[in-house]
């Protein structure tokens, strides 16, 4: 016999209570893990997507808020208010490389997919894409789609296959090499075809701009604003603005998760308090057999800790499973698009898993302190005489 075996036997003796208490901490940690998994990878994703966009400046419709800026990074559907004339005006400013995008969405097999209308040559040079299969657009208004690597895998599309966008069957021209960003999950159409299918006339959603001289960025912003009256943000401003939105969402999620874990902690306190009352006599026997106060304290703390470790493990498994299973069903918006973009590979983060189990254990141990102290404080006679 040893202390850990005794702890295990004590806990599992009342299976119903053990399971319900475990369920409490499991649910608490699972919600914590789910929210962390969903929200945790967003920050990295945003940095990655901003870098992948490759722009120093982004032109957006006037009056756009952070949400539109977030949509640029997530590939979410955006209003199309920037005219070809306005793009031409911007292009007239020297020192800028301007690439317009039409951001829309379609569905393949009932699953939403980002559609991006692009100027093939300009975008290829801007993004430095590689073509892994098939061919790229051969002229600026070719009818067909070039697909990101992840989307091609997801829908099992190869060059020569067809994709239906807005009721029109389009041939798959080629598959892009992995970029590591949202482009991997996007269908690209030539801009004129996209504008025709989505009835956008000659308009686009936003324009990404690379400047020749970074030192003159502020000057360029002013020039574009004066010339077009459109909104212009630098990549740094956009990053700050988007991270601000995500930060608020993350804090909200973390608070909800904290409440769940707190509720679970009270569940453990309740169980351990009940145990100290029910096992008063046993505590007395242990004391009569030579158990010191610190041994009784340790025994109850280990029981709490056991709940924390097991609850942490089951909570992490449940939370990750929930994150992976639920993610595709979350309704579409800019935030959840990011979540979807994260993929299960990013959701399973060893640091987060280890941290959650440690967190669960620490919470359980802290929850066990008062009941353990109560148990250890009993005198042998008080405990043995308990009826």
């Amino acid at each position, binding site marked *: *016999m*040893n*202390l850990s075996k*005794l702890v295990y*036997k*004590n806990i*599992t*003796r009342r299976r119903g209570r053990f399971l319900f208490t475990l369920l409490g901490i499991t649910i608490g940690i699972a919600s914590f893990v789910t929210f962390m998994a969903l929200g945790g990878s967003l920050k990295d994703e945003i940095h990655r997507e901003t870098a992948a966009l490759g722009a120093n400046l982004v032109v957006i419709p006037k009056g756009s808020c952070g949400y539109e800026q977030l949509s640029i990074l997530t590939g979410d559907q955006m209003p199309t208010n920037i005219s070809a004339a306005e793009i031409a005006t911007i292009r007239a400013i020297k020192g800028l490389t301007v690439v317009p995008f039409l951001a829309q969405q379609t569905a393949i097999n009932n699953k939403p997919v980002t559609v991006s209308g692009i100027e093939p040559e300009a975008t290829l040079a801007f993004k430095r894409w590689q073509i892994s299969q098939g061919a790229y657009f051969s002229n600026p208004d070719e009818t067909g789609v070039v697909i990101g690597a992840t989307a091609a895998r997801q829908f099992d599309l190869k060059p020569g296959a067809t994709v239906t966008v807005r009721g029109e069957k389009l041939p798959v021209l080629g598959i892009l090499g992995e970029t590591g960003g949202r482009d991997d999950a996007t269908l690209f159409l030539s801009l004129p075809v996209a504008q025709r299918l989505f009835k956008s006339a000659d308009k686009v959603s936003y324009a990404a701009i690379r400047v020749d001289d970074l030192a003159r960025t502020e000057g360029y912003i002013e020039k574009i604003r004066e010339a077009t009256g459109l909104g212009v943000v630098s990549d740094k401003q956009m990053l700050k603005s988007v991270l601000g939105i995500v930060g608020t969402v993350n804090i909200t999620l973390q608070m909800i998760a904290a409440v769940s874990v707190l509720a679970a902690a009270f569940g453990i306190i309740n169980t351990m308090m009940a145990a100290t009352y029910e096992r008063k*006599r*046993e505590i*007395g*026997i*242990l*004391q*009569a*057999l*030579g*158990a*010191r*106060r*610190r*041994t009784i304290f340790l025994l109850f703390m280990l029981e709490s800790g056991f709940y924390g470790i097991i609850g942490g493990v089951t909570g992490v498994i449940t939370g990750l499973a929930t994150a992976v299973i639920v993610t595709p069903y979350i309704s579409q918006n800019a935030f959840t698009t990011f979540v979807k973009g994260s993929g299960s590979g990013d959701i399973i983060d060893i640091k987060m898993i280890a941290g959650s189990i440690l967190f669960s254990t620490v919470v359980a141990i802290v929850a066990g302190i008062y009941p353990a102290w109560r148990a250890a404080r009993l*005198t*042998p*006679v008080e405990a*043995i005489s308990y009826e």
Partner: protein
Amino acid sequence: MNNIIRTEHAAKSYKSGEITTTALKDVSLEILQGSFTCIIGPSGHGKSTLMHLIGGLDRPTDGKVYIGDVEISRIPNSDLARLRGKRVGFVFQFFNLMQGLTAIENVEIAMMLAGVPDREQRVRAVKLLALVGLAEKAGAKPGQLSGGQQQRVAIARALANDPDILLMDEPTGNLDSVAEAEVLDLLQTLHRQGKTVVIVTHSDEVAKRAERIIRVKDGLVAH
């Protein structure tokens, strides 16, 4: 022969709010090593309190209690716990076995608390269960054992750390006459092997087996 237990003017009172209840008034006694002693007396007159004091489960409010040369009424709690584990084996009326553990685990737990290694615990627990005639019940849980068998497991547990003293509170109080006789025979065997046996009892059958009887009445010892 030496005294193994000694009290000097030991008194114990309990306070509950404004009310003070005196359980033991002024008890001075000596119990010889290797003796078989019964403490008898009416209910509520201080027998169990006396047992708790001499077993180190409680401390006197006045006076002194010794086990061997150690004044146990003064030593720190942790030393007192260690002393209980090594020198005193307790047996209670209601057996007080740990319900979730098997018979052999109940015996092992006393050794675990004394720091005996796992393997040695198992070897010794098997021997002790054989000594009390329950070798074949080693894997049984308390609920699967009769009252007599449970009490024999409790005696095996009390012997786990080879204590000098066996302190028992109504050890046969919940047993039928056959089981009572079995337990008393076992206690006499242990006594013959050199253990100091002290039993708090109401039973004449038990008292008959004792070498010495200490009567407790109104919190005092009547020699």
